[in-house]
């Protein structure tokens, strides 16, 4: 059977990326498996949870990023949420006592940065608002709950987080008007 080649020869970079991901998969999986095992055998604090989450952060952020909604807003929100989870894990499992202040600071700083990214490229980014809105609503709720149950001196961070989230929400509603409602309808459709 004689085959007449009628397609161009694919570039090497396509195969390289595939090989790169395939080569990294096993070291990542091995590390994610062996760390909890060592941790369980040696005992002590659950440091392996922090390692596993960090591995996940690197894998999902750099090696195998999101296939849908891979834009500057969604990626910055994903990084903020992942970083917050990592901080909470470190505080909870390894060195307690500081996350209640640090996590809100990371959140409001991240929200402010996302707001800048959003409003400086509004026409293109308005289709990408949803992840930012989810974090905004989450931060608002976190702030309300935190301020109601937390009575330490470090409440300022919670208050600022709530204020930034509220301002961002109002800013988006005011700027986008009917488009904001349309986006909410799209994002929560069940059809």
């Amino acid at each position, binding site marked *: 059977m004689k085959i007449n080649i009628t397609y161009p020869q*694919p570039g090497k970079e396509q195969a390289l990326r595939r090989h790169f991901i395939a080569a990294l998969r096993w070291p990542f999986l091995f590390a994610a498996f062996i760390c909890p095992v060592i941790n369980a055998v040696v005992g002590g604090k659950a440091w392996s949870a922090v390692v596993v989450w960090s591995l996940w952060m690197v894998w999902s952020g750099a090696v195998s990023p*999101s296939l849908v909604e891979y834009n500057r807003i969604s990626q910055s929100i994903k990084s903020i949420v992942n970083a917050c989870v990592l901080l909470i894990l470190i505080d909870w499992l390894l060195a307690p006592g500081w996350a209640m202040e640090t996590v809100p600071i990371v959140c409001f700083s991240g929200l402010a940065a996302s707001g800048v990214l959003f409003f400086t490229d509004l026409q293109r980014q308005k*289709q990408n608002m949803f992840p930012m809105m989810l974090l905004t609503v989450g931060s608002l709720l976190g702030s309300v709950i935190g301020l109601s149950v937390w009575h330490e001196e470090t409440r300022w961070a919670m208050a600022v987080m709530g204020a930034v989230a509220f301002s961002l929400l109002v800013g988006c509603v005011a700027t986008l008007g009917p488009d904001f409602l349309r986006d909410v309808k799209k994002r929560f459709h069940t059809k």
Partner: protein
Amino acid sequence: MKQKKKISMSPYDLYLHTLSTPELTALSSFWEEVDSHCTLSKKEKLRLRADYESALLAFAALGVPVGAALARMGVRHLGGFYARPAVLWYPLDDAAKIYPLSMKQGQMAVFRLSVYFKEDVVPALLQMALTFTIKRFPSFATTVKKGFFWHYLDTAKRRFVIEPDTGYPCRPLKVGRSGSQSFRVMYFHKRVSVEFFHILTDGTGGMVFLKALTTEYLRLLGVELAEPGSVPDLDAVSDAEETANEFDRADQTEKSAGFMEKSALQMSGSLSRARPYRVLHFKMDSDALKAAAKGKSSTVTSYLLSQLFLAGRYATDELQGEMSIQVPVNMRKFYPSKTVRNFAMYCGVRLPLQRITKAEDILPEISRQLEEKASRQAMSEMMNATRKMVGALRFIPLFIKAPAARMVYGFLGDKIFSNTLSNLGVVQLPAPLDGYIDSMDFVLGTALTNRAGCSLVTFGHTATLSIAKMTADPSFEERLYDLLQADGIDITVEGSAPCED
């Protein structure tokens, strides 16, 4: 000594110098009209203008006077698409919902339709053809977005682009970036190919788009239709039915056929990391193919299924079990519809390995199963099952659904089938367009465990059977070639080189 600065002129500037004053005036007012029909971002506007300039140069090279060129690219062909903000969005149809849930790095449901012209493609005119065609397909002028419960298609107002065909066919599309396309239009010598993410459309819908693009491209080249109205008017308003999710129209049946079946045998070659490993096209004379099928008192689909079973049997080392070939069924034949969204179901023709001996022996069983399993009743049951499943999952958040679906899909995948045969049927284009086209082909996207996926499309006197291979083992295609040759069908084999694995 002072060096004189060299003023370099672009080909378009040089072209302008060849125009007369009335032509320059006409061109100037043309640009004003284009500007008034485009409210895209400044960058996109500049690119659109560059497309027009390249097209003007291409027309000049073809010897088309500037007046005729401007008339062919008149702003009425832009319509209001580039002047209005994006407001439309589309929930995914019931069949499409699985595609974004199951995709992962390097694996995406992509299929490809190609048309082979008799002359080399003029890229600048193909780009303009796409610019004018896309407005008629609003559900294609979209980008995939993630909702809380389901993915959806959001309108993307941008300049949709063509690209040279450089990579391997049916490779995943990058759909994640803001406003990114869920299809790609490519050119290579005489071939124009469109690769679609299955989320947008099925083979039939994709073919409607390719025919429209082809018609528009040929119109720009100056080919006028003998009978206007024989192809959809690209400047007409889109009909809601063309973007409808037609799964709601299923007959209410008491039974809902499930999707679960026992695993089928797979061909024995090891799976390649690159998907597809290679693509092959068996180009055959359609009359000879029909005659071979008729000689065995069967339809073309049944006949080819019998040959695929025989070739598959040859390509496996297994001695026990069943082989099953998936046959997609176009639901438009039961529920007439103009939709260009997904509207296809599938059935599986299944045979025990020991029974696969000679075409004559298995053809009656293949025809019986096809008649029974691809009937309106059976397909309606499957549509109902799909609707029920979608309904049951509708309130489960995507972050729970997606990993579960990926796991189930990864576990089950396409293991219940050994192969696929999708027959798009005979594609027709009105005169004189058909005289400019040599043939067409249709390549199925990547499979998970199946070593091959086959598809057939006929244009004019050429039937093209395409095989997307997922293994380096050539046993299947070589046997199939021999079987078809033995039935008196002459075959020209074309395809891609094996992929670097």
